[in-house]
């Protein structure tokens, strides 16, 4: 089951705009939600998923954000219901080329991959292709 939704969490509005532009060009029908405030993004994570109708989703998460940064976001994310988590693949999308950030995310079990900004069409294609969710269906 291919992902049907992209969730963008980045305080940088410009980046979200760019990401949406490239996703729309690659997957014109896919659903995209974006947040510049991480808290709001997280609230969405808690509420936008149900168990009876799973929506396979891709999360592109920035690290360097005020109030709640990417790592903190992930910490909270790991506490969410497994059934929610099963529906989401997390990608870090950061401007940082710091190896520490990359290593840290590589160690993180909930992070699929670390992407360095800027995002490209190829990157989105690849994300889409490498995700084939076997999501639990109630039937």
């Amino acid at each position, binding site marked *: 089951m291919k992902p049907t939704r992209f969730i963008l969490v980045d305080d*940088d509005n*410009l*980046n979200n*705009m*760019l990401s949406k*532009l*490239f996703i729309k*060009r690659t997957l014109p029908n896919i659903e995209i939600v974006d947040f510049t*405030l991480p808290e709001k993004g997280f609230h969405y994570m808690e509420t936008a998923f149900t168990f009876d109708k799973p929506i396979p989703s891709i999360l592109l998460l920035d*690290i*360097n954000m*005020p*109030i709640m940064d990417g790592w903190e976001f992930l910490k909270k994310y790991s506490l969410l219901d497994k059934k929610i988590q099963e529906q989401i693949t997390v990608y870090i999308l*950061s*401007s*940082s*080329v*710091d190896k*520490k*950030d990359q290593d840290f995310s590589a160690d993180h079990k909930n992070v699929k991959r670390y992407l*360095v*900004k*800027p*995002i*490209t*069409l190829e990157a989105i294609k690849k994300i889409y292709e490498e995700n084939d969710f076997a999501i639990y269906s109630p039937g």
Partner: protein
Amino acid sequence: MEKNLAEELRISNIELVFQIKEKEKREIKLIIAKQEFAFQNLEIEARAEELKDLNDKLYKTEISLSKANRLFSFISHINKTITRVNDEQTLFNEACRIAVEIGEFKMAWIGILDPSDCKIKLMASSGATEEDIKLLSDEGFHIDGLKETNMQDPDYRTVSNIQKAEQIQWKDYAAARGFISAVSLRIKKSGNVIGTFNLYTAETNLFSDKEIIMLKEVVEDISFGVDLFEKEKTHQNTVKLVTENEMRFRALIENSTDMKTLTFKEGKVFYCSPSVKKSLGYSFEEYLELNPQNLIHPDDLPDYFKKWNDLLQLPGQSFHFRQRRLHKKGNWVWCEGNITNLLEDHSIGGLVSNFRDITEKMIAEKRHEFDKNNLDALINSTEDLMWSVDRNFNLITSNIPFDKMIKRNFSAVIPKGGNILLASYTPKRLNHFKKQYNRAFAGEAFVETEHIAFPVEGWFEIFYYPIRKGDEVIGTACHSRDITAIKKVADNLHKSEAFHGGVINSLSAHIAVLDASGNIIAVNETWKRFGIENGETTFQRTEIGSNFFKVCLQSVEAGYTIAEDALKGIKEVFQEKRIDFYLEYTCHSPDKQRWFGMHAKRFESDETMVVIAHQEITKRKLAENKLIVTTNELQRALSDLTKIMDASLDVICAIDANGNFLKVSAASEAVWGYKPDELIGKPLLNLVYSEENEKTQLTAAKLKEGNNLGYFENRYVRKDGSLVPIEWAARWDKKDQIRYGVARDVTEKKRLEKAFEIERLQFFDLFLEAPSSMGVLSGSNHLFIMANPPYLELIGKRDIIGKSVLEVLPEVVEQGFIEMLDEVFRTGKAYSANEKLIKLDVKNDGKLVDRYLNFLYQPHRKEDGKIDGIFFFVVDVSELVLSRKTIEESEARLNEAQALSHISNWGINLATGIHSWSDEFYTICGIKPGDMEPSVAAYLSFIHPEDAADVKQAIQKTLETFEASHFYSRLISKDGLTKYIYSEWDFEFDKSGNPLRFYGILQDVTEHKISEEKVIESESKLKVAQAIAHIGSWELDFETKALILSDEGSRLFKLPANQRELSLDDWVNFAHPDDRKSIQKKIEKSIQNLSATSFDHRILLKDGTIRYIHSESKFRFDSGGKPSGINGTMQDVTKSTKSAEKLKQSERRFREFFKSAPESIVVIDTTTMMFTKYNENALRLLKYSAKELIKKGLADISPLFQPDGRATKEIGRELILKAVQGNKTVFEWALIDGNGKEFISEVRLASLSNIEGPLLIANFADITQRKENEKGMAAITSDLLQRNKDLEKFTYIVSHNLRAPVANIMGLLEALRTIDLEPLEKKELMDGLSVSVVKLNGVIYDLNNILQVKNNLPEKRERVSFMQLIENIQISISDQMKKQHVQIKTDFSAIDQMLTLKSYLHSIFYNLISNSIKFRQPSLSPVIVIKSFKFKDKIELHYSDNGLGINMKKEEDQVFGLFKRFHKDTEGRGVGLFMTKIQVETLGGKINIESEVNKGTKFLIQFPI
């Protein structure tokens, strides 16, 4: 016929009986008896004729008759012989001859029993052949083998037929000689048998009873004769003795040393023996003229008179006296004797006084008594025990301490003479003592050390010292000394040395002790450790036993020139050229530069040891080096000038216009006693002698007017108060307003001038006042040009000046004096003579008077050396010479007078060989007159065997030379007493010089000898006692002012062996100069109270040794109670004092060490936890006075809690206990010094090993500096860490924040390039691009700002007013302020200013205020409060607002982080607080935050002042 014959015989028998009876009567009168014999003889002859006629046949009868006749004739002859002869031997000879010739016996002999060997000795014989005589000497040939028992048998024994007799063994001999029968008759003397008269005949049965009776009569006659001779001899001897005794008596009296006088009742002397002259000096005649009572000492007279008067009433009685009598020469002679009242004895009719000179005895007795008292005083003057024991272990003497000890320990006393070996000793101890005593008896002198545990532990030294009398050991003297104190002192010494060792080892300085030759004799642990750690890089590393000087020399060779200086310095310290020596030197190890200071110091009291201490001074050195570089140049310039000035012996000085010293050269110290430093800045006038102030000021004023001062003299007061005259040369420098002066010390010059004047005056004084005569002669004819009054008096002339000697004293020309003067004048040699006789016409009357002169002629030379006159000095010694001559004469007379004249009480008539002994002679020998025949042999038999050989020799020699002589010897009297005798003798010669008589005296001097021996014995006891106790005694006599010392006393002073006397001055001079005053005080005090006193002092002997003496003295009083002298003892206590001294010295050394140690040391008594000792450095470090510190312990100078939070007392006790257990303990410790300042110190605790004791050494070092350095280091490290973190963060920030806009730009560009975009989209992207670029720029700008702050320290610091600053900020944001109704409340009353970088401080507050406005609560107007606070070393600024606040729990770590933002709704790059923090820190401050969400935020900013 037979009958007739028988009848005849009977008749003749009757007649014979009658005759026998007659004969008995003859014993009464011999002559009558003889006549009767003769008569009877005639009758018997007549009868025989008749009988012949009557009967020829009666041949046999006739034979027997003739035999009877023969016997009668025999008797008759014997009797005749008895009347004729008068000695035994002749009688015996005659008796034998008559027996053979008249009695017709074949042989007759007489033997007398020799009682000595109980043998019969052949006395006389007749008819005997030589063979017979030989045989008769053999007992076996005697008739009956005569034996002693037989001698007491009846009167005779006969053998009628030898051949038939059974017991006779000489039958053959008898047969050969024709002896048929024999008789042996007993000869008696005084009724006792003394021998036998033996007759042999060829006839048989010769010895009928009748004949035996007749023969018995013969021997009775002989016995009678013997008795008679004996009686006559006795009679003659008696007569002879009577006459001799008279002679002897006179001799005795005349020659005895005892004086005998006969005195009338009234006291007048009418006889005196010659010995009076010998003892008292008066001749016989003189003495008779004197009343002897006038000679008696006034003190002795009253008693004498009383006794004398009593005696007059008691005829026949006598009294004894002992008194002083006046010798003719004026001295008192002690006399002892008896006076007997013999007034009623007509042959005497006076009082007989018999006395002798006992002065010597008295002296001996007195001396003995003194010695005995002295001995008693001596042995009781010490606390030591003294006693002596004889060979029977009986106590002879003991002192009071000994008796006390016995009483204390045994609750008993040992009486004198009691056994010393107490039963209460254990057998083991008893045996021990016995053994020791016996060792001493065997002659060994030894010391035993005894350790006693009970009742109090103590050590004793017991001296055993044999007492000798001659060669014999008669006992032992013992002396027990309590040496506990010495022992303990030694113990303490040992402990204290260990203690010091502990201290030294705990020091951190490297310390070594050198002896004078450079050997290292001790080093401490630090020294050793340094050597191990540093190898052989410097000269300070060496081990004990190696030679430091050598190491230095090796270092010099290796190129360390500094070692040479070190060596020189240390040697100078040894040579006392300097007190100490300090040298700094480098000792760089490969990785570190280091400096050391070497300090060499002599022990205060010990010139043979030097302590070398090395201390690292690197830090100080580094600082110094900088200073040195900067000041060096200046110094050099100055020192050149100073050197020139200082080289001058005169003081060169510069004085400013006010008269104060500006500069003074070093000579000022020599001239004024002040060092230049002491003078600079002070007025010159202060030094000027007050009387010359005015003069000096005037001169100085003159000088200022421009008069250069060539010469000016005034006086100055030196530092020591003395005056010094100074000669000045001075110049005034108008330009600089300085007076330059050169001052010269002219003391010496002044002194010489004065001395010259004094000498001149002295010469005239001498000349005029001199007691000796002197004068000056001028020219070759000796004109008097000077002569002093004594000279004029001597020669008896006046007005002699200008006259020649020849004119003035013409009488001396012939005596050669002018020639002497000529000789001196010519040769220039001085001439002197002593006691030269000169005859002078003193009275100018032509009579010459003898004068003895000592004189000196001394040539006087002109300046060119030529002689122009003669000095003469004359001393008149006439009186001296004349009186000496008189004395010499009288001495000669005295010697003559002292020539020997002595007595005799025995004599040998050399012509007759007869010896005579006086009664007393016998008495001395213990026998009675008549007991023994006087002879040399008899005399010698009494002489003590040991002396016999000497005496024999003396007598023999005398008899060869006939010279007077004498000897002393011993004699053993018959009753076994040993007596000392004195014998003296002389000879009497006839006209032709042949010796007639040998006579002399024999005197019993035992009493004298014994008292002498007693003296010797007591003296020797005293000596022994003194020697073993090292106690000497002395006696000061106030009258003679002389000090008499005992042997030991003399030894203590190391006087020559025979010197026993010291003058008072000498004695005082022996006292150590430092002690004299105190001794004098003691003595003065004791004289005031006349009390016994004791004092300790030192004596300084001539060889430089010092002895410590304990003296005790007591006053001696005469009979009137006046003090007459002082008796004292002195004990050498050097040994014990030295030990104590050594302890002191060791302690002193320690103190020195302690004092000079470069560290701060205290000693802690761990029982009280208090400090007991501390050194100067400790006081300096801890800033307490010595008094304060001693009352404190470690806890008292520490804060209650240590930096690690633990309680001081608890942790302190723990550490001290650890150290006590022997662990070296080093720890950091907070201390509070005397000023209340807390500081961190490193404390090293070390227990003093080897010493059981509660002491710890604590060594403090202030490590505040080090601590701070460490802190600094930590700060730097943390700074570095921070920077590193910052750098990391920075990388991070760059990767996030810098790259974010870059990534956006890249993304946007990519989108623009690759994607077909709608125009609206395109515009959106282009706008986004623009925003990203602006953002990028902003980030770069921020980074630039941050890097600037971090790396640069721009601008100058300036004084910034907080108030001003805040106002400026308010103005710059006034729009916002108004808009948001912001209130800023400030209070900078505590402090309003600080020195800082204005822009930074501005930025800090700007950021804070703008943050407060930015993050305000929506509902509230922002209120900001800023306050300043001032502290000792810091300023605090408190900033608070009422804004949103930050959740500190969440954000604490990140508040001040770069690019951190806490508020989503508000713009901001997260740089403000980061920048604020960096700026605060750059200014050296700190910033802290406290915040609560929705309440506000507080910032606390601290800046150092």
